[in-house]
């Protein structure tokens, strides 16, 4: 089972303006991913765009793998141009996984960050309390599918177009005050995840963050995607690759460098 393979597009839908759901049928036998893992994707055969792009898998069921993504630059534009029946090159599954929570847990998603948490929510059948924040309602994708997987969901938007008008950390803090024992899993923008990590640190509960980084290889070879992680030997932190040692890290070990 090679981690380098081609897959055929079986469905490619607009979920919202600027967001698409890509469903792929691998052209050979491939490994089944676990929640938190990701793939490197590349559409097209020319040298521009050059590198593959990292995407968490959204769903993996009856042999297909799907990705929920936002169209940003040339890489995602090339992917967005794929039609049903066309093929795409992938590497994966890559990276580590979310440590499976034994009981109830809190999931905090920032916008498209839901793409990474979705598989965890699915695997944890209803044991999650979801806190889901976005700039605006459009960023909260496939709400029905998501809500169906969780015990309860608290929603916020910066502009109040959906749920409460606030940052997601506000309701989270209120909830944590009463449920400080629950582990927290979060994926979203770096500033959001940092705020979530702080909130968890205050009440002393464990927090797992799924980090983003620019990636070239996705397999730990180029050292392009590193983040400083603290451990016993390196109290000041040491560079680890997000693609191989991560993308999921214990928030308390992450040295948050202000990514200009």
């Amino acid at each position, binding site marked *: 089972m090679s981690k380098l393979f081609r897959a055929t597009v079986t469905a490619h839908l607009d979920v919202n303006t600027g967001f698409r759901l890509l469903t792929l049928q691998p052209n050979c036998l491939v490994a089944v991913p676990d929640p938190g893992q990701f793939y490197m994707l590349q559409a097209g055969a020319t040298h521009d765009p050059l590198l593959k792009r990292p995407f968490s898998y959204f769903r993996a069921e009856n042999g297909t793998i799907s990705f929920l993504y936002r169209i940003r630059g040339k890489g995602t534009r090339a992917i967005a141009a794929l039609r049903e029946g066309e093929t795409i090159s992938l590497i994966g599954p890559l990276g580590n996984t979310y440590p499976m929570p034994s009981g109830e847990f809190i999931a905090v998603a920032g916008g498209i960050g839901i793409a990474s948490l979705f598989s965890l929510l699915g695997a944890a059948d209803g044991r999650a309390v979801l806190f889901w924040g976005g700039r605006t309602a459009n960023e909260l994708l496939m709400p029905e599918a998501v809500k169906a997987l969780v015990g309860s969901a608290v929603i916020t938007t910066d502009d109040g177009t959906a749920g409460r008008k606030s940052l997601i950390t506000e309701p989270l803090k209120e909830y944590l005050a009463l449920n400080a024992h629950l582990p927290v899993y979060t994926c979203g923008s770096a500033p959001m995840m940092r705020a979530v990590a702080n909130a968890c640190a205050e009440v002393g509960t464990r927090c797992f963050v799924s980090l983003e980084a620019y990636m070239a290889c996705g397999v730990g070879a180029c*050292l392009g995607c590193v983040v400083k992680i603290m451990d016993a030997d390196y109290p000041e932190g040491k560079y680890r690759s997000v693609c191989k040692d991560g993308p999921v890290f214990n928030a308390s070990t992450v040295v948050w460098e202000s990514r200009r």
Partner: protein
Amino acid sequence: MNPSLGVNIGGLILKNPVMTASGTFGYGEEYAEFLNLNRLGAVVVKGLSLKPKEGNPVPRIVETASGMLNAIGLQNIGVERFIADKMPFLRRFDTKVVCNFFGDTIDEYIQVAEVLSRTDGIHALEMNVSCPNKQAEWCVFGTDPKVLNEVVTSVRKVCRVPLIVKLSPNVTNIAHMAKVAEDSGADAVSLINTITGMAIDIRSRRPVLANKIGGLSGPAIKPVAVRMVWEVFNAVRIPIIGMGGIMNGADALEFLIAGARGIAVGTANFINPTATVDIIDELEQFLHDEKLSDVSEIIGSLRI
């Protein structure tokens, strides 16, 4: 019968001309699950220094048109841990192991070369005198003939295996630098290292890379690399390892025809982890199609 792909690069005997480019293949392990390392001419590992190196802050990489800029900052685990933790794995394979290394001082270069060339299972050393993505003054190693002569000569004295000098493309006359390396005792030269470049985020008005500048690699630089290999081929007698934007067999052939006896695959590994073995197959196919029995027949065969 199959054409023979074997080459001798200054005493380093390879089953085929295809190597990995330093820094793009980790320590070999990272790609072992994607391809059979036994098929490679050689594995060239990430640049090593005497002590472990932290490397640069992020962002360390950014994509450009048909290329990428990197400013990893030569992060590595240091020679000691490399020999203890990584060599046992590499020794298990029937391929040649080439250690890329560098130092902050000539003394460090000497010490690292001594340790590595004494290590069982290391078949050749490649000295990186370019490092376009560090601004320490020792960058001049690769761009100043006098300094280059001094460092290569001293390393040559202690190095017990074939010594490859990896040249920087950021020079006016690369043929001259290659000649200096040859006269200083290099058994081979490899080129090109990355070309120094920069990308700017126009909204923040900051360099995209934390290190400000980085090294350009990938298909974008291939025409420059092929030209330099050809210039060097016309200037020195020692073998050349060509690299710079090689993505497939046709690219590799351009370098061999220009005069490279070996070729290294770098950025291509990131996009296609099996690029190296695919290239070996394509070379074999090409020789077969052209009814050539030995790869040496095409090396330096440019018709002008």
